[in-house]
């Protein structure tokens, strides 16, 4: 039993240079220590950053690894959130058990979308728009679904909690911080492992040239299906977290196209297909938004939309200056070798 396990472990660490390992350990230590250092406001910002890092990593599996551009990831987010929140409010079932229901629901939804798209050879821009269509369909559908309170929204009971109840995910920011930190670390490890697995290599082959991959004997349909389902399943936890962190769910918000866009901006800014791109992108974007917000307040400017304009301009500048994202040039600067070409 131990031999395959150590083999797996050595495969996980293979190719990670001493330098990157040291850097990783330092970053992780900083993250673990953060709640003792930063104040409540910064901790909330860090929670949001990690939430985007996690969701971005999930999206990255589908787009960054397998090359399937999804612009409707809000559907998996929303389904995850709604399944867990409904089980919690209606039947008193905790979020971790709820997650066991949310994951198959989201994966099944991904399977349906993937099956229809790949079977009928909907690809490229058309595929992206199909994913938007399904997310919009779900948004309007949930808006009229009385079982989940339709457009008036689903609320989770909010109380002041004397102590953190991890099992029911009710408590203060520090608990949520560690939960999402653990999830993000898990997602990174999962992606790292996937990239070094057979499936991961097949995904990269499909991303680079689908026809060649098929010619080489890869069952592209099946592996694209895996990509969508894994990505959807991983995303669903982001939805569960969203529901229990914000304590409310509105179809207009959780399924909206802006949720989907939010999720994918991080990995695109950070670097699509890289392991640390989604995390770095989440930092850059959320950090930027928060800095702009506090900067505007500091200068006494209270113009609705002004922050967003700056945000848009920054996005524009990044995409013009760094078409491959922030991470690849940064990794080169730091002397780290990325496992990407």
């Amino acid at each position, binding site marked *: 039993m131990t031999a395959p396990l150590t083999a797996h472990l050595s495969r996980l660490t293979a190719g990670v240079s001493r330098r990157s390992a040291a850097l990783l350990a330092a970053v992780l230590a900083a993250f673990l220590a953060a709640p003792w250092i930063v104040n409540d406001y910064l901790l909330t910002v860090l929670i949001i950053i990690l939430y985007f890092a996690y969701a971005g990593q999930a999206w990255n599996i589908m787009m960054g690894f397998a090359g399937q551009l999804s612009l409707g990831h809000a559907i998996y987010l929303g389904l995850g959130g709604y399944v867990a929140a409904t089980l919690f409010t209606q039947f008193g079932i905790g979020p971790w058990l709820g997650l066991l229901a949310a994951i198959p629901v989201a994966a099944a939804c991904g399977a349906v979308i993937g099956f*229809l798209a790949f079977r009928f050879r909907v690809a490229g821009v*058309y595929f992206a728009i199909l994913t938007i269509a399904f997310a919009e369909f779900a948004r309007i559908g949930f808006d009229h679904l009385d079982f989940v309170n339709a457009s008036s929204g689903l609320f989770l009971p909010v109380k002041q909690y004397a102590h953190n109840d991890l099992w029911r995910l009710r408590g203060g920011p520090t608990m949520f911080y560690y939960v999402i930190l653990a999830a993000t670390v898990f997602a990174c490890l999962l992606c790292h492992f996937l990239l070094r697995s057979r499936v991961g290599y097949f995904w990269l082959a499909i991303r680079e040239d689908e026809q060649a991959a098929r010619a080489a004997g890869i069952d592209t349909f099946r592996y694209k299906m895996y990509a969508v389902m894994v990505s959807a399943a991983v995303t669903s936890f982001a939805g569960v977290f969203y529901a229990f962190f914000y304590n409310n769910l509105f179809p207009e918000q959780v399924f909206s196209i802006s949720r989907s866009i939010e999720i994918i901006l991080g990995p695109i800014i950070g670097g*699509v297909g890289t392991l640390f791109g989604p995390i770095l992108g989440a930092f850059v974007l959320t950090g930027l938004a928060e800095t702009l917000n506090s900067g505007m307040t500091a200068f006494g400017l209270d113009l609705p*939309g002004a922050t967003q304009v700056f945000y848009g*301009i920054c996005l524009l500048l990044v995409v*013009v200056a760094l078409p491959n994202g922030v991470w690849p040039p940064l990794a080169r600067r730091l002397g780290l070798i990325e496992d990407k070409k």
Partner: protein
Amino acid sequence: MPFDVYLNVAVGGILTGLVYGLMALGLSVIFGVVRVVNFAHGEMMTIAMFIAVLAFAGLHLDPLILLIPIAAVMFVFGYVLQRGLINPFITRPEHTQFLLLVALAIIIANVLLIIFGPDARSVQTSYTFDSFQAGPLIVDAAKVYAGAAAIVFTAALFAFFRFTLVGKAIRACADNHTGALVVGLDVKQLYALTFGLGAACVGAAGTMMVLIVDATPMLGPSYTLLAFVIVITGGLGSMPGALLGGVLIGVTEALAGLLFTPSAKSMFAFGILVLVLLFRPQGLLGKRLT
């Protein structure tokens, strides 16, 4: 419900759908030639809507008179945008183009929000409450004018692509990019012209749209999505297809609003989109793209 209610609603839907079709035509032209999906399409329409609202409020100019000037302004906007910003991106991956245009959309929507505030603004023309009656049929005059203007504008664009040399050159670029370069066409210039024409379409559609809906800065995303739905339903790159798709979606939304609930109407539009993508991915009038 009596039959003439359905008929009235359907005719209203057709007329609105013609304006939708003109808007979507802009997206279709841009994608068909430049191969960039304009994710800021709805936002470009909101610009045109606010110019129309402003010109009406300040100068008392009727949107029907403003049609050509606003289309011209939007043409310049589109031309400059393609030349200055989008052109380097045409060979880059789709997600990079997506990010660029989403950034642009965020900027446009929020600049409009800063200038005009979040309130809805409408145009009250002398014919806003007029209607035409033919037998049991009663239709809003504003919708009739808007639909007719959309048809005229589309016809003019169609003639331009069909009969002028520049139009032919643009079609050549769309058919075969390398071939167009080989015969010495200035593809960069033609792409910019095309983007300008697409923007002019959406500008004209926006000008007509103020007769039908109120303008708010945040209208953009839903109209961008609507344009996608229409264009894919009709067939990307097909000009009659965009118009047909517009009418189809316009009627579907109008009837769905009547039979079910107005808030669920776009669900039917997306339902049509999914069916078309699966069973006729090239669209109703489109040619299969490879």
